[in-house]
């Protein structure tokens, strides 16, 4: 059994050594687990609030009731979430297509294979040709898709969730509008 004295000592020691103490340091470690932020809703980021408000106003239309405005806001938030996921995936694919990371990984894999097999017969020009080659267009995209499928499918989960939630938000909005027009 841990004694009370030991518990007190542990707690005191822990308080004395729990990470950064400055505001800047704390702000920095607060983002340690942050990867892409796609699991956070758009409303949690003030940068997106303007976008959400503009879209919500467009969806609600003029002279909207408070209920319609609220439902329109939900749609706008989910649409913004969806756009963020799609933009993240687009930037990911664009980066892979434009920079040489994907090519570099492919080439490293080739060098490793070559080194493991230790082929004395292979001509010097074969690796030279491969290492200096760059794949273009759809073929390059196909290779990226095959290599980065895991990452793309992970992003797809966020898109699926946002799409599903948006669908139900739109249905609720349509229902509210229909009952409103009927009651008038």
């Amino acid at each position, binding site marked *: 059994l841990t004694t009370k004295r030991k518990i007190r000592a542990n707690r005191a020691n822990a308080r004395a050594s729990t990470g950064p103490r400055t505001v800047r340091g704390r702000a920095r470690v607060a983002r340690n687990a942050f990867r892409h932020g796609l699991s956070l809703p758009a409303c949690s980021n003030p940068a997106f609030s303007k*976008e959400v408000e*503009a*879209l919500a106003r*467009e*969806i609600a*239309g003029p002279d909207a009731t408070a209920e319609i405005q609220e439902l329109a806001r939900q*749609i706008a938030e989910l*649409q913004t979430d969806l*756009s963020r996921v*799609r*933009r993240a995936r*687009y930037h990911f*694919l*664009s980066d892979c*297509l*434009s920079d040489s990371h994907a090519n570099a990984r492919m080439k490293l894999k080739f060098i490793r294979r070559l080194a493991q097999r230790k082929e004395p017969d292979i*001509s*010097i*020009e074969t690796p030279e040709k491969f290492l200096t080659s760059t794949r273009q*267009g*759809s*073929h390059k*995209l*196909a*290779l990226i*898709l*095959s290599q980065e*499928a895991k990452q*793309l499918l992970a992003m*797809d989960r966020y898109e699926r969730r946002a*799409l599903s939630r948006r*669908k139900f938000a*739109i*249905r609720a*909005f*349509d*229902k509210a509008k*229909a009952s409103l*027009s*009927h009651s008038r």
Partner: protein
Amino acid sequence: MSRKDRSKAKIATRSAPGRAQRLAVFGPPLLLEGEDATAYDELLSRICAAVKPIDIVDEIFIADIVSLELEVLRWRRSKWSLIRAHGLSELEYFLAGKLDQDLYFANYVDHVVRFLEDNLPEDEVDSAQTLADKFVEGDKDVFDKVIKCFPIERSVRQVLDDARADKAKKLVQEYVRGEREAVTLINGLTDAGVSLDTFMTEALREKINDIERIDRLTAIAETRRNAALREIDRRRAVLGETLRRTVQDIEDGEFEVIETMPAKGKNAA
């Protein structure tokens, strides 16, 4: 404003006034390197014309349909490109094993000339072509001199293999461009029980895992596109129902209850 923004704004202005501003809310179209912005605009205007959006929610679905349709086309293109590139490289490999020496002889000479130009003293570079011609004809006087110019790891056999592979590659490129000479030659060589389809099938077999991944992405995009179309249908049905009710209410309001009045003549009777 970027080129993509402009094109989207242009098409939106053309199709309906005031829509440009609304579509800007969705952001620019997400086109990858080498994709055509006009194809996006064309698709958007055709779908807008067909669906005739009644509000911004319809436009949200239209934007979804267009981007998902482009995605479907993008993945299909990638899949075809992967199979084709792999099939053509199989054809190249097959051809390299079937080419007669006279077909790739010129490439062999070119390789030798290149080695000589890289390694001969500067004042002898002009004689590279002559030396190479004599070497490939088997002139013993120039043999040692030329062999010394070969890279240390290359034998004559390997240089011949390289020349053959180069020729095969060039032939496949000409075949892809549809040049008649290459098409005839390759069709002649592949007559022995093999065709381009054989190589494509081989590519499909070898790349089946990559193809399955692309097919999965295509299926996801198709399902979502169809779901967006169904949502537009559902909204149309809701709109139709609302309109029916409204019309009914208006008609009900127009009706006047006419009280039955006894006819004068009938009472007298």
